[in-house]
């Protein structure tokens, strides 16, 4: 039997000839003016793509969380108590493509370095409060009818039972500059807080009552992602490093007072995806740069300490999503050849608590990320959110529990 690793001139010839024949039949026409027009066009939508990408990621985790919750026969959505450490059990689905890996070692951590300092004094945050969301309601960002090619989005309350919009909260955000970046709930579920990109390097945080009884209130400027501290007493604001050249997280007291500012060491900058999120006991920050994992910080503002996990350089993490203090990300290219299997990893704080192989075929069949074969989560151009294989909402691009 022929060993395919041996030199095989016939194979080489067949491959080369096929490629040359195919390429030779392709006669593309250059159009330089089109390049310039595209450049001008793209300049106006710098914020849109990362915003949409970040939004889609959140859907992934939320859908998985809902599925896990249903799998436990516990009606309603995931509990959102600050000390809640339950993480989505994605393998509670009947997927045959994921095999739980019980041998995940804790990620080693070191002191993160960086500096804590007193930031500016903050006035009490204006957080309009409404009636708490019901257990089967989530705050979400959904696409809105628009003739504009960039589209518009609404912030709404969505039913996880029916997928219907229960009530709109804020309608018609223009997405030319990115639109709504991230959406979170206060721990008491009475206020929806979201970040809104207003141009390439300007953004703001707004808040609205969950029952629609208030107009949006501007809470802060310049934020890519936000998270409430576990006790709800502080709002952590990731200022975003792309435009300011540093990773700065402000810890703003909701009741007003001195802001605590954490600035990471310079090597933490240059991220393409990052988020700040609430852990069970602290605030976490994770970042990647073109898929390569950057430092993952666990910042304890109460103790003014920061720990960092520097990820394995061979891994590539994308599709960051978080809820209930855990982050899920898609890990690919895990072996030296770059052709290794893909995994869905879960981090609790800085520890990798779960790493589950994902069938590559699943990922390729799904536009952005896939969790199982039966379609428990399907994200295509249609952006459908499904629970137990049932579509509960379409065109949902971001959901917060």
């Amino acid at each position, binding site marked *: 039997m022929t060993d*395919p690793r041996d030199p095989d001139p016939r194979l080489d010839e067949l491959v*080369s000839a096929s*490629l040359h024949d195919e390429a030779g*039949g392709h006669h593309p026409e250059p159009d330089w003016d089109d390049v310039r027009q595209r*450049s001008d066009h793209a300049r106006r939508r710098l914020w849109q793509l990362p915003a949409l990408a970040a939004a889609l990621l959140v859907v992934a985790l939320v859908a998985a969380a809902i599925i896990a919750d249903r799998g436990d026969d516990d009606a309603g959505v995931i509990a959102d108590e600050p000390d809640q450490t339950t993480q989505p059990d994605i393998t509670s689905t009947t997927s045959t493509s994921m095999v739980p890996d019980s041998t995940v070692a804790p990620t080693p951590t070191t002191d993160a370095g960086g500096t804590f300092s007193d930031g500016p004094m903050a006035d009490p945050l204006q957080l309009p409060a409404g009636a708490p969301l019901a257990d089967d309601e989530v705050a979400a960002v959904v696409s809105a009818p628009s003739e504009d090619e960039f589209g518009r989005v609404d912030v709404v309350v969505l039913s996880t039972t029916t997928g219907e919009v229960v009530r709109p909260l804020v309608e018609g955000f223009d997405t030319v500059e990115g639109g709504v970046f991230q959406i979170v709930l206060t721990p008491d579920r009475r206020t929806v807080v979201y970040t809104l990109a207003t141009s390439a390097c300007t953004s703001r945080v707004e808040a609205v009552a969950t029952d629609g009884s208030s107009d949006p209130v501007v809470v802060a400027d310049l934020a890519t992602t936000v998270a409430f501290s576990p006790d709800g007493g502080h709002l952590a604001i990731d200022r975003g490093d792309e435009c300011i050249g540093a990773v700065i997280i402000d810890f703003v007291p909701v009741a007003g007072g001195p802001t605590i500012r954490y600035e990471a060491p310079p090597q933490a900058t240059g991220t393409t995806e990052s988020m700040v999120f609430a852990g069970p006991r602290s605030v976490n920050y994770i970042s990647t740069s073109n898929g390569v994992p950057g430092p993952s910080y666990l910042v304890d503002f109460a103790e003014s300490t920061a720990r960092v996990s520097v990820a394995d350089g061979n891994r590539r993490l994308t599709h960051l999503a978080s809820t209930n203090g855990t982050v899920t990300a898609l890990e690919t290219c895990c072996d030296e050849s770059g*052709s290794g299997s893909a995994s869905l990893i879960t981090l609790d704080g800085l520890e990798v608590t779960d790493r589950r192989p994902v069938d590559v075929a699943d990922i390729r069949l799904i536009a952005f990320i896939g969790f199982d074969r039966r379609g428990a989560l399907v994200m295509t151009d249609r952006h459908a959110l499904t629970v137990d294989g049932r579509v509960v909402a379409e065109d949902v691009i971001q959901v917060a529990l």
Partner: protein
Amino acid sequence: MMPTMEQIPERQRTLESWYHDHFVELARLGALACGDRSVAEDAVQDVFAGMYRKPPVLRDPGNPLPYLRTAVLNRCRSTMRRRGTGERATLRVVADTDTTTEHVERDAVSTSTRAEVLTAIRALPYRQRDVILLRHWLGLSESEIADTLGISPGTVKSAASRARTTLATVLEPLR
């Protein structure tokens, strides 16, 4: 009003020159990789639009080809993934098939054989596919492929080996 040559920055003139020098090769490379000529041509346009907007940092400022090739391959891949059709799309082989005698004589392999070969190549993992395209279509050396894809020569070698193993098995009936 069209700008005069003096008004166009040197950088843009260089970029336009690169565009005209490499457009055809890059569009063909993209088409071979993703199996869709229009997507490939779009990818090339977008890559140059990105460079027009923000010049990349090139390892060799005088040689943009490694960057351009990688950028086109990556963009084709991303586009197909976004479409959700990346792995389901069947390769369109010579949609404008020319059936004249001259064309038949020009081609070294039959259309059906070519389709099977290209389908097999497109079914490879991305990195293996890229290595095969750069090696067998552009004729790059291992070190040039490594430079283009930003990986080590050893990784190129192992990816090529795995690709050849797969192709040898899949294409055995054709040989």
